[in-house]
């Protein structure tokens, strides 16, 4: 059975696409056959973050409409043999996504032997976002330690609990995970930023990890390489931990405590 995982948040720009790229890569690196689908119809971006933008021929809507089959549309990742990207359409709008169409794509992926299917949700709570979460077995709710992001996460949790197939059919609920991203331990220590514990207390779902705010993410996206590949960087390590926890391995939280820089650094600034 393929597991369908939605990466969602309500708010835009919080790190859903960055997270989808890294977690799907992480699962593939663990040997699972993984597909990652861009549901952001009209604003495709996952292809850029994965570095496969020049190989896009067909997209999700083409497959939904039967204009192409899955094998034609799936793009093999340049780093991992068992990772495939299904891009969003750049020219159509979100109304082109139908529930039946999406369900068929997911079923077909399952028949192709995929273990995990990640759905990179668009922002908002409209059709595109609802389609991305409708068939989810698990949800990674990406939240920044910031008021509007946390409120929107709570809203999207409400939608998961009412509009997902699992909720409608009264099956076991979607398994929810909280991922706090763009975290600055220093600002938390200074009392300027909500701590991950605050966010978790507010949203009341299990925490799967904390991703630090890091310039490396921009470096990764510039190159079209998912951040999880950046050897020895904090972000990559944090994402590898998230994947491990997703697979039920125990990993202590890292990069959540602020380490004071030395006196010289403090006096003369710099990073």
């Amino acid at each position: 059975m393929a597991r369908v995982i939605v990466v969602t948040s309500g708010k835009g720009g919080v790190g859903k696409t960055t997270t989808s790229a890294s977690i799907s890569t992480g699962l593939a690196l663990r040997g699972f056959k993984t597909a990652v689908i861009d549901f952001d119809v009209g604003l495709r971006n996952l292809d850029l973050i994965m570095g496969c933008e020049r190989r896009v021929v067909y997209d999700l809507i083409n497959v939904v409409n039967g204009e192409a089959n899955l094998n034609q549309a799936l793009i093999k990742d340049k780093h991992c043999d068992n990772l495939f990207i299904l891009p969003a359409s750049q020219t159509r709008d979100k109304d082109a996504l139908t529930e039946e169409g999406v369900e068929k794509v997911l079923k077909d992926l399952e028949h192709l032997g995929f273990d995990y299917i990640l759905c990179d949700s668009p922002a908002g709570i409209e059709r595109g976002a609802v389609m991305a979460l409708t068939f989810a077995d698990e949800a990674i709710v990406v939240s920044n330690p910031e008021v509007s992001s946390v409120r929107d996460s709570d809203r999207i949790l409400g939608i998961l609990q009412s509009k997902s197939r699992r909720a409608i059919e009264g099956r076991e609920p979607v398994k929810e995970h909280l991922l706090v991203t763009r975290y600055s331990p220093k600002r938390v220590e200074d009392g300027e930023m909500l701590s991950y514990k605050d966010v978790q207390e507010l949203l009341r779902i299990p925490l799967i990890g904390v991703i630090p705010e890091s310039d490396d993410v921009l470096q990764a996206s510039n190159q079209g390489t998912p951040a999880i590949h950046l050897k020895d960087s904090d972000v990559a390590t944090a994402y590898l931990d998230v994947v491990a926890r997703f697979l039920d391995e125990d990993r202590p939280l890292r990069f959540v405590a602020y380490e004071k820089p030395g006196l010289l650094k403090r006096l003369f600034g710099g990073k």
Partner: protein
Amino acid sequence: MSLLSYFFGSKQKTASVAKERLSLIIAHERGTNRTPDFLPDLQRELIAVISKYVNVGPDDIKVQLEKQDNCEILEVNITLPEQPQK
């Protein structure tokens, strides 16, 4: 952080304000957005029962579900009509 602000630190601690505001608004929105489906039926049946004994209309009974911390509170508000003058 510059040298000056390091020694004369004047950063506000706003995170606790954020948390306080969020916990209020989230509790409120959970109450209004996640109303279970049975509430309208419950309200209708309550009206039917109560109006056997007192003269109340559909607008005199308000049924609300609120979530506080870990418990849910079902709040039923019935406005009784003023006693008719005899």
